[in-house]
């Protein structure tokens, strides 16, 4: 359900931002950041240009074709590749990580022949969750596509933003390198299963209306090997990750306020993805869950079969927001319980782009028994950005 993660889609990044961007520039960048956020989410349809480009609609019944659909879909308004996962250090300490590349098509005139024309924006985001640090390390970057410096290629996964990139090799293995401000990630992600097409064969409903949808597949149970560099210390890690690739042009329901999403690799080889879109009045706008077991058997749950019940809350000392960091999820008759790797996995970028949400590594149990590890995201728990 990363479609709603656009809260994390920030623009404007610098390894050395410091406080230099305070003030007007920050405000401007926040506006743009929010604009990108809203655009991805589909809240907004600005007509900035006299001749707005037409984007492809998401329609049911279009089968996903690989490897083409591993690559970019520039005709759709927005798209992302989103990797989350658990790592283990040589001394058996757990770490969580997250790497995201967003592509956003703007309404910039398609006739502009300039190689600088901002027709597509690339936004990347990375975070490292280390209980030893006690909070999330994160960084983000953004650029216009072009001049070979930033791109999302068609045909297969090949995305790049300056010195951040993610590339899918022909054998299906992903290579990614992220040189963030405070840390560096360099991973190989090797699939152990086929892609998991969400919802209706990859056509994922996002709301009650038919056009509120996206194309969505996941690559769960990815074997991770690589290195994490932090404080100039490179350590070898391995672990398990989850990749989502989703693209759409759609509108999100205007009554939505935020969302809770979880993707989990279960120890028995099965995979769980569930999300809840919360309405402004606190009611459920939409919900979904899909489980695929190790043998490939896929079970889909309708909105009324999925429920999220907060178990324990945590008040952020940074923002005062209260997050239900322990969540009970019911899919059909199965009860899942999410427990965070650490409470403070809040991503607070008010000093730069202004977005605040919680996204972190969680342990998951099924009907009271430990079942695996996943990533949990909660947005919309802090008041809307004040502009």
């Amino acid at each position, binding site marked *: 359900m990363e479609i709603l993660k656009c809260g994390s889609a920030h*623009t*404007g990044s*610098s*390894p*050395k*931002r410091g406080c*230099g*961007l305070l*003030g*007007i*520039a*920050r*405000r*401007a*960048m926040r*506006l*743009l950041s*929010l*604009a990108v956020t*809203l*655009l991805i989410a589909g809240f*907004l349809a*600005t007509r*900035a*240009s*006299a001749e707005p480009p037409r984007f492809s609609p998401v329609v049911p019944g279009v089968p996903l074709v690989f490897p083409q659909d591993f690559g970019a879909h520039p005709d759709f308004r927005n798209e992302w590749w989103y990797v989350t996962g658990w790592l283990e250090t040589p001394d058996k300490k757990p770490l969580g990580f997250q790497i995201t590349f967003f592509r956003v098509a*703007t*309404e*910039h*005139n398609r006739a*502009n*022949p*300039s*190689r*600088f*024309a*901002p027709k597509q*924006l690339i936004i990347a985001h990375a975070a490292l969750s280390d209980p030893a640090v006690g909070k999330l390390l994160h960084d983000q970057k*953004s*650029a*216009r596509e*072009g*001049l*070979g*410096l930033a791109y999302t290629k068609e045909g297969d996964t090949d995305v790049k933003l*300056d010195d951040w990139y993610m590339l899918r090799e022909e054998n299906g293995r992903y290579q990614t390198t992220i040189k963030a401000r405070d840390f560096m990630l360099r991973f190989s992600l090797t699939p152990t299963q086929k892609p998991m097409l969400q919802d209706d064969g990859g056509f994922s409903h996002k709301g009650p209306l038919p056009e509120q949808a996206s194309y969505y597949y996941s690559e769960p149970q990815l074997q991770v090997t690589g290195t994490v560099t932090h404080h100039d210390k490179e350590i070898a890690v391995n672990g398990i990750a989850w990749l989502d690739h989703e693209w759409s042009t759609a509108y999100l329901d205007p009554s939505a306020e935020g969302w809770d999403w979880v993707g989990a690799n279960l120890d028995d080889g099965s995979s769980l993805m569930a999300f809840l879109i919360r309405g402004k009045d606190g009611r459920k706008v939409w919900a979904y869950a899909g489980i695929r077991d190790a043998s490939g058997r896929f079970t889909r749950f309708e909105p009324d079969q999925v429920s999220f019940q907060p178990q324990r809350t945590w008040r952020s000392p940074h923002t005062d927001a209260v997050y239900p960091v322990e969540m009970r999820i019911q899919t059909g008759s199965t009860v899942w319980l999410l427990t965070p790797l650490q409470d403070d996995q809040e991503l607070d970028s008010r000093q730069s782009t202004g977005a605040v949400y919680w996204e972190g590594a969680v342990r998951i149990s099924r009907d009271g028994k430990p079942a695996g590890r996943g990533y949990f995201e909660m947005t919309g728990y802090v008041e809307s950005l004040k*502009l």
Partner: protein
Amino acid sequence: MAKLTHSGALSRWLLWGEWRAHRSQAVVAVIAIAIGVALGFAIHLINAAAFNEFSAAARSISGQSDLQVRGAQATFDESLFPVLAERDGVELANPVLELDVAIPGNRDENKGATLKILGLDIFRASIMTPDLIGIPAEDKLFDILADDAIFLSPAAMEWLDVKLGDPLQLRVGTQAITLRVAGGLTRARAGQRIGVMDIGAAQWRFQRIGQLSRIELKLVRGMGHAAFKAALEQELKLRGQFLVTEPADQETRVANMSRAYRVNLNMLAMVALFTGTFLVFSTQALSVVRRRHQFALLRVLGLTRRQLLGQILLEGGALGIVGSLLGLALGYVAAATALHVFGGDLGSGFFSGVKPSVHFDPVVATFLFFLGLSTTLLGSAAPAWEAATAKPAPALKSGSEDAALSKLATSWPALVCLVLAGVLTQLPPIFELPIFGYLAVVLLLIGGIALMPRLSALIFSAVFSAISKRTSRAMPLLALARLANAPNQASIALGGVLASFTLMVSMAIMVASFRVSVDDWLKHILPAQLYVKTATSGDTRGLTPGEKEALAALPGISRADFFRSSQLTLDPRRPSIALMARPIDAADPGNTLPITGEAIAPALLPKDAIPIWVSEAMVDLYGYTPGTRVTLPIATPSPVFVVAGVWRDYGRQFGAIQMRLADYQALSGDNKVNDAALWLQEGVTPEQAIASMKRLPFGDALEFSEPGEIYASSLNFFDRSFAVTYLLEMVAIVIGLLGVAASFSAQALARGKEFGMLRHIGATRRQILSMLAVEGGLVTVLGIVLGFALGGCISLILVFIVNPQSFHWTMELSLPWRGLLAVAFVLTASAALTALLSGRHAVSGNAIRAVREDW
């Protein structure tokens, strides 16, 4: 301690007693110092404010970059950008397309006013130049990337008279495009006229696809700038003509643009301060002379030499402190007012487009305070020394006043000054400033003034003996006798007049020479009957070859010369030079260019090099002497040119090169032209020609001017630039008159006994006053005559040394006789009047008391 207290009380008594009695003289001295300090401070504050604002504006445009890469020409190919962005050691590369764009219909359009537009990549610029990020309307956030949006600084909005959401027309070539004002640049500097838009949109809208103006680089932490720069320069050599500059270069470049102007203004202010110093000297000298008896008495009563010296210096110092403080306050207020009313460039045009505000500068204030104080102390030192070393017993007797000043009549220091001045005129500039020239001016002034006692004694004695044989009228004789026999006091009064008149004469001759030369030059460079510009300057203008042909083919036009002008950067620390390509007859370049000095005969021009003709500044700044072979970055590989001649250019002090249009087009492939000079067929009026050109499809984008208008507006601009020097001249004159007033009132007071005696023996009050007026007039006439001589010498220095060394242009000498004579007349009359008014006070006293009293 006790002793200190009491001598302190004594000092105070003497000080207050003196000032109570001679308030007006103290006030005059204070005013003189205050004016000098105020001028210096005001000019510094205005210049500093304008300069700082100008560089801050320039800096805000270049942001926090460590290095900048730019081409020798205005733009270069963007393919360099990804190379630099991905280069090791580069943390961030920020591409910039900077354009000066003409605004159709803007009220300042024909003044060549353009809007600076920066095309930026917000994702990179938000880090490099955060002040330049536009703020879109809240419901149109994506305007920041839109292809038709422009964000304007508040000053630009005001200047263009547009607000959020308004369309804005801009000139591209002969066409106009319309952008939408999508928001503001609230962090732009006050008065900074600037627009920002997306770089992709800018490339497209302004037909600059694939082009960048510069790339700003931020290096990774710890990367050595110098090593990186050297390596990069080496690497860039293979890619063409690039310059790698540091922000300091930019500062230097901005500083270089206005340095000569600023230094010259400061020098003028210093001359005013110098005149003020002289006034303090004369006030103090006369006051000391007047109180010679008192000081002698104090010495007899037991005041030591040092105490007396200290007392007089204390008096001078007190005047200096009060005057300097007053001057600082006055200067600050004047600067604030001038900046508010006239803006920062005082009409010179060096600092247009910014709105500076005045900031108190404690360092310079302290400097000027001590300068004011020390000049006052210096002015007091000589009289104080004389008073302290005088023998008290004879000094108690009257009649020794002029003797006290006789040391002033020693003429060898004056002659040394004059000789030294002559030597200094032969020295070259240092730091590209005519420092020695100014020193020579100061030495000439000092020497000239110091020679006055001797000269005035000689001259007045001669006149006295000549006149006394012929007339028996008492009063003129008395006046002359005094001037002849007490020449030292006379020459002190003379000094003020001389200093200010000398200053005025020299400035007037310099300005007149400059103006006449500009006048001649304008006539030479404007031979055609009609001039056509593609709407204003700016980077975006130009006629295509087709448009050019259409223009030349119009009926009624007998000849059309087309021009292409562009900017070249040869040295990153210097402002760009102008490159102008036009038809030039290599056989007779003087026909088109105001050739000056030597040139290579056409027959002797080498065949393997392309001839160029350079302005005088190119010779001074870049060493482009005739015959020099040079390369210019207008094509890759750089072709070889030879300097074929030097022409005079008053338009571009940073240098300009002219070459044949055909050569330029063949080398650069740039077929556009900017301007045209048109000759009309007989019987065709300029109006008819303009009307037919306006009917061309691109006629709206053309601007027409007749030579007369260009001529008039150029001279108008010239006069505006020199307005501030006229003001300074006025101030110098006022200070000079103050000097006359101060010295005559002091003398009149000192001569109370003399006047009392004259009244006793039957001179009427009117007669005494007329004697004073005659004295004042005569002193002034001599001051003026000598001022002419001295000012003439100084004007030679200004015309032939200071100007060429400061602005790199030469000029012919011409003398504004009529104006100078008028000023001389007014000055004489006002000096006589001043002397008379100053004397009235003394004459009005009681004659009997005046005789009886010992002082």
